[in-house]
């Protein structure tokens, strides 16, 4: 089956082509939806088979490379359309195809009746294909196809409601920010390629070959540069500081898109990429530190913003940013396995959350539509008390919320706790570890707070929606709720495959599975790891307990503020108006970017055009022409028409000529 690994991205491609080219003719939503879903589901099946086959192999043999066709061969440079299957990509394809299939299914219901239904499915399939290319790519360039491809699909899907200006803007913003990241990715790629090539004559961008040659890479130095560049790429794709602002805006897209792309899969590409090249990243302590710090900072930063948002999807978006921060934190502290683990669990519960919110929005929208109201269907201030109307949604949502908050027993707990523990106990960052841990813990607290704030505002309390339409609120159809239930279930149990050794109930399958991928990194990391303090089990237990407490505190605050004492939030915002405004406006980051980059660029462009291009360059060009023309005028008036002048000119010529030779 491994030889047919190319089928995995191929099915969605076929789906894309069918829906994209013929979708308009087909018209029948069921058929279109079925094609789209089947395409990705077939991939899922193949993925499962691949996974099984991989499991059947011994751990050290779990690397398989497949060249489908040669792509760019020029000079030293060789890039094939090659796929790499190893434990890491297996995890990813499973997540992508699995969650993807569910979301496709969900979309059939959610997108029902939308104009351009076929377009949506086509894009969705295209996205899956790109994402699969990304994770399966056997070299950086194939990965880059996927990398950009998912950006493209993100663009297309965010801009799905293209008649809305905000959607268009958001789409463009997403793409451009991603491009900034891509720029970093490319430079990183170039640096690595060039350095290995020129110093060791290993001209390659193949992951396996780089891995084989990675012992040649120095610690720090050029690797730091390259990895930092790669990391810039990761921040763009995974919405980390400073390139995170596109993700909340990306919520302009349909909700399944948010679930699939902006929560479960695409945004994790950065994490995946770092995991894929862990053996390179680990060689640069500086980069690792930067990653860890950026991850932690993003986690807390986005979490703070999340506390003040009213749009249900925006809260989730910031939550996503924040959770991605956790993953980066994990990568940065060398806990690659934990990061990927969190990636996976996050995919489950965040997809569930988004789909749940989609279900809510769907219902709200439906209700508002029936009532001919134009209230915002996504504003939590219009919701409340939905748990009765939408029990399944509520339940799954709640499970996922608990998971994300890090309550023991749910998937999020295992992964997040592992990250926090590693942040504290990793051997790489010395004293910085305390800060990392503290930041992560506080972020976790915020997470619990805003997630429960969300739950409380949406599902608990009184229904704040216009009473006229209250009776129109219904649970969503099965096609929507089935994915919710599946995902909710996964959010609940997904964590058990990666239980910490500490708990010892189950072996940490997940970490073992990924071991072959990351062992080299650990080996390299050992070169500069501090082996001094051996952390005790007690400490680990203590920290775990602490993090649970923190989460509970967050939940408690949320409960107090949004169920018990509903005036509290208002009082709070009144007490710190500027703080609230700042948080509500996302710390004015967008404005800052506008001020620092966008507007200067535009005005610089204007200046270059009107000022430089037209005035200076064309001015010179036309100026030369003007000067020549001016001379033309002068010469013309020398031609006075008077014979004496003409004769004078002739005589003058003679005199000068003779004079020169006579008096030479």
């Amino acid at each position: 089956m491994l030889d047919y690994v190319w089928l995995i991205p191929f099915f969605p491609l076929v789906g894309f082509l069918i829906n994209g080219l013929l979708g308009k003719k087909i018209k029948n939503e069921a058929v279109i939806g079925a094609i789209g879903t089947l395409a990705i589901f077939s991939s899922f099946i193949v993925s499962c088979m691949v996974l099984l086959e991989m499991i059947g192999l011994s751990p050290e043999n779990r690397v398989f490379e497949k060249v489908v066709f040669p792509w760019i061969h020029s000079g030293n440079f060789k890039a094939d359309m090659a796929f790499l299957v190893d434990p890491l990509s297996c995890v990813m394809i499973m997540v992508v195809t699995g969650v993807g299939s569910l979301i496709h299914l969900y979309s059939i219901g959610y997108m029902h009746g939308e104009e351009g239904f076929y377009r949506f499915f086509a894009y969705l399939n295209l996205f899956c294909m790109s994402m699969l290319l990304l994770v399966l790519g056997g070299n950086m360039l194939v990965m880059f196809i996927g990398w950009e491809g998912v950006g493209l699909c993100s663009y297309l899907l965010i801009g799905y409601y293209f008649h809305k200006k905000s959607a268009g803007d958001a789409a463009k913003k997403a793409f451009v920010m991603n491009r900034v990241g891509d720029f970093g990715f490319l430079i990183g790629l170039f640096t690595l390629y060039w350095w290995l090539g020129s110093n060791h004559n290993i001209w390659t961008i193949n992951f396996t070959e780089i891995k084989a040659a990675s012992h040649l890479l120095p610690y720090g130095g050029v690797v730091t540069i390259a990895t930092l560049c790669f990391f810039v790429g990761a921040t763009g794709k995974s919405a980390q500081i400073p390139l995170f602002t596109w993700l909340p805006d990306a919520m302009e897209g349909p909700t399944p898109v948010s679930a699939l792309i902006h929560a479960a899969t695409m945004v994790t590409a950065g994490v995946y990429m770092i995991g894929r090249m862990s053996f390179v990243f680990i060689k640069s302590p500086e980069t690792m530190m930067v990653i860890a710090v950026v991850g932690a900072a993003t986690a807390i930063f986005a979490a703070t913003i999340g506390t003040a948002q009213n749009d249900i999807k925006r809260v989730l978006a910031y939550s996503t940013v924040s959770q991605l921060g956790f993953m980066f934190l994990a990568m940065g502290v060398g806990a690659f396995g934990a990061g990927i683990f969190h990636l996976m669990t996050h995919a489950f519960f965040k997809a569930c959350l988004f789909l749940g919110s989609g279900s809510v929005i769907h219902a709200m929208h439906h209700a508002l539509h029936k009532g001919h109201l134009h209230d915002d269907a996504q504003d939590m201030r219009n919701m409340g008390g939905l748990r009765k109307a939408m029990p399944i949604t509520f339940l799954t949502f709640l499970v996922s919320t608990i998971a994300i908050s890090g309550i023991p027993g749910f998937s999020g707990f295992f992964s997040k706790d592992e990250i926090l523990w590693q942040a504290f106990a990793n051997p790489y960052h010395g004293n910085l570890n305390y800060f990392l841990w503290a930041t992560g813990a506080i972020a976790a607290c915020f997470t619990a707070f805003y997630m429960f704030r969300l739950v409380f505002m949406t599902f608990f309390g009184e229904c704040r929606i216009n009473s006229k339409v209250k009776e129109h609120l219904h649970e969503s159809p099965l096609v929507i709720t089935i994915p919710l239930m599946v995902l909710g279930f996964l959010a609940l149990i997904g964590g058990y495959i990666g239980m910490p050794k500490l708990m010892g109930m189950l072996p940490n399958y997940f970490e073992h599975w990924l071991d072959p991928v990351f062992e080299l990194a650990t080996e390299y990391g050992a070169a500069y790891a501090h082996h001094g303090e051996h952390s005790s089990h007690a400490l680990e237990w203590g920290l775990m307990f602490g993090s649970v407490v923190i989460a509970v505190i967050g939940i408690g605050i949320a409960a107090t503020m949004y169920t018990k004492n509903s005036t509290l939030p208002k009082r709070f915002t009144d007490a710190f108006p500027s703080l609230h405004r700042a948080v509500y406006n996302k710390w004015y980051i967008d404005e800052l970017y506008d001020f620092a980059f966008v507007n200067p660029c535009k005005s610089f462009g204007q200046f270059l055009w009107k000022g430089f291009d037209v005035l200076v360059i064309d001015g010179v060009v036309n100026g030369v022409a003007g000067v020549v023309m001016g001379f033309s005028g002068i010469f013309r008036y020398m031609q006075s028409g008077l014979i004496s002048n003409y004769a004078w000119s002739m005589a003058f010529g003679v005199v000068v000529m003779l004079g020169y030779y006579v008096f030479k």
Partner: protein
Amino acid sequence: METLFFLIISLVAIVSAILVVTCRNPINSALSLILTFFCLATYYVMLDAPFMAAVQVMVYAGAIMVLIVFTIMLLNIRVNASKSQSHKIVLGTIIGFFTLINTAVIVFKGRVAIPSGPLTGEIIKQQGHTELIGREMFTTFLLPFEITSILLLVAIIGAVILAKKKI
């Protein structure tokens, strides 16, 4: 003696030449020019070229100048035509002056070819200037001589075309 004569003639020639340029009245200019031509004819005699002198007087002073004077009369040009602008005179004179300097230097510094021809004063006297010229003209310079006929024909046609009242 000859030098003195030469100087006197030169003085006359130059003065009359200046008069050609300075006289307001074209008729006066023309008459001064005739005087210059006569001076030149004198030079030619001094240079053992009596035939040239004769032709000079006949063709130039006689034919051409008569033609010019005749035209002046015909056109009845007002004597006191407006004066030339002074800048024109100044600039013109400057150029003329430089021309003179240049040519003078050329004359003084230039190397004239070594006399190599067969003709000396005696031979000219012996054979007669006219005959010598004639012989040259009909042998060595036959073609140019023929060309002059065409030239004159063209001039005639031209003059007719341009000046005849009605063609």
